[in-house]
């Protein structure tokens, strides 16, 4: 039956991927086996957990909780450091390349030049793409305000990373933050500084309190909101980034829990679609299910290819601009 469903392959950064689903950074990205598991379930690209210049233990528990409308996490960029990550990426690439699935490295650092240094080192693993995480909301104590909060800082980091990997043909993806007045402005700054693609968006800062103790639940106090609550915020960020950067590929990430969510993300302007917290919301087969639902939705709506869904929300509306105006508020 699945043979009759539309082909979900998609072109991202001049690369043909078997599926528009991308395993988001921070989810399952800790080992090669888990990256492979995501690929087995229908991801066209998988993102390894963000790594930094040195190993980092991350925050103590609770580091991730379900508060009702989604998740709140502050793992705190736990990672084995860039040197260890190189081995993981090399092995992941060796295992996933034969099936056409791309491996995305993700990096973070404390300064623009340190970003360049980590990028130079990680490039030796030849990941297919390099995502720069300038928007983690949970490490302000260590690194200060995220670079994604400011166009100049976002551009400076992007420039350093581009320079570091110049000549190695590794496209650079800049991961944006949702909590800025204008996502479009930051997106443009990154693209002008050389970003090949954008990832919109990271988690949204939030706080969950325990009313019995009066204390924040997460050890880091605040965390990043993901899951269903993030979806409309992510759709707006992707929509704005697409408007601001009409020709830049975008990984649309945030609250995608089923096939229809993925369709909406593509329509908002995503080139491909990141999935993460759904593995909790939908269970361990989430990626497989979303992949199937997306193809079923396309078949039911007579949509032949992913390209037919992309950017639809930016097309002309079905009808001419409505002449209706709401009635004026009455006097009484």
């Amino acid at each position, binding site marked *: 039956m699945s043979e009759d469903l539309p082909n979900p392959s998609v072109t991202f950064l001049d690369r043909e991927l078997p599926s528009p689903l991308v395993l988001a950074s921070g989810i399952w990205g800790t080992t090669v086996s888990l990256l492979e598991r995501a690929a087995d379930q229908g991801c066209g690209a998988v993102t390894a957990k963000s790594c930094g210049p040195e190993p980092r233990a991350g925050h103590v528990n*609770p580091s991730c909780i379900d508060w009702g409308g989604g998740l709140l*996490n502050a*793992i705190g960029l736990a990672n084995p450091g860039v040197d260890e990550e190189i081995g993981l990426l090399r092995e992941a690439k060796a295992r996933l390349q034969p099936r056409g699935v791309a491996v995305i490295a993700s990096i973070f650092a404390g300064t623009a030049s340190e970003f360049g240094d980590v990028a130079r080192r990680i490039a030796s693993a030849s990941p297919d793409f390099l995502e720069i995480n300038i928007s983690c909301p949970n490490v302000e104590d260590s690194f200060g305000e995220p670079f994604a909060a400011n166009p100049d800082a976002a551009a400076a980091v992007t420039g350093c990373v581009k320079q570091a990997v110049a000549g190695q043909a590794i496209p650079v993806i800049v991961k944006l933050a949702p909590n800025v007045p204008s996502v479009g402005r930051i997106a443009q700054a990154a693209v002008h500084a050389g970003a090949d693609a954008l990832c919109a968006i990271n988690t949204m800062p939030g706080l969950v309190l325990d009313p*019995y103790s009066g204390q924040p639940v997460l050890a880091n106090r605040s965390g990043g909101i993901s899951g269903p609550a993030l979806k409309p915020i992510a759709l707006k960020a992707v929509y704005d980034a697409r408007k601001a950067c009409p020709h830049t590929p975008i990984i649309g990430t945030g609250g995608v829990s089923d096939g229809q969510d993925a369709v909406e993300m593509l329509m908002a302007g995503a080139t491909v679609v990141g999935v993460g917290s759904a593995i909790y919301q939908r269970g361990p087969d989430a990626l497989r299910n979303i992949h199937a639902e997306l193809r079923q939705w396309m078949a039911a709506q007579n949509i032949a290819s992913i390209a037919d869904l992309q950017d639809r929300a930016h097309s002309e509306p079905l009808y001419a601009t409505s002449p209706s105006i709401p009635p004026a508020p009455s006097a009484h």
Partner: protein
Amino acid sequence: MRILSDGCAHSGSLGLPAPFPILSVETDNYRTKTFTIDLSLDALPGQFVMAWLPRFDEKPFSLVAADPVTLMVTAVGPFTNLLHAMGPGDPLWIRGPFGTSFRLPGSGLRAAFVGGGYGVAPLLWLAQTWRRQLEGATVIIGAGTAADLLYVDRFNALQKEAMSPGVPLEVLTCTEDGSAGSTGLVTDLLSDSLRSGETDLLCACGPHGMLAAIDSLGDEHNIPRQLSWEAYMRCAIGICGSCELNGSVLCLDGPVLEYGRTEQDAQPV
């Protein structure tokens, strides 16, 4: 809180931690106590909960029982030391149950339950829950020294209880230094047991080395096994990847993983 009745991993909301008072604390040995909490959960043997002390830390604990929630706590660090200083009436914040349970594949089987160190935690409840459906059971409890052996009295009590209505329950103990039971490892006892009698299923919980050895033994004798793996649970809901083991996330796919299963459909207890 929701858990699928088939004993497989959750697919719904497991919510925020909430405080429940400690009902009683029993001292098991020089560093282990068993806490009973004023909370009942719809859970199965093998599943775990996260216990939180606000702004201090949160740790995973295998359920010794679910009604009321009972946890075995060995003092090995700051969190468990702080817990050991608590008593009846003090609140402990709990969320869960998480993860997979042991799953009884059929009735009339002979099972071996093997616990190393504080790995015995889920096995008493498991043996209690399954015993009426088993043809017979062997419990093997091991530790480094006599002082480290846990729940031997509780298993002996279960053994007496099991005499009527007549399901044979054998309880064997061993220590590495020979200070109690036979001298050696649980795998030595298990190996003897597998050679001398029929066993249809191995259920075990303990250190990784012990479980790996039991897996090899089971493989050698062609016996299905359900192994409960210990890991540092970070998110506890299957997404962060901290507790990965050979492609499985132990907080969601596990902690109980099945190996060498021949039956097509395991039935819930």
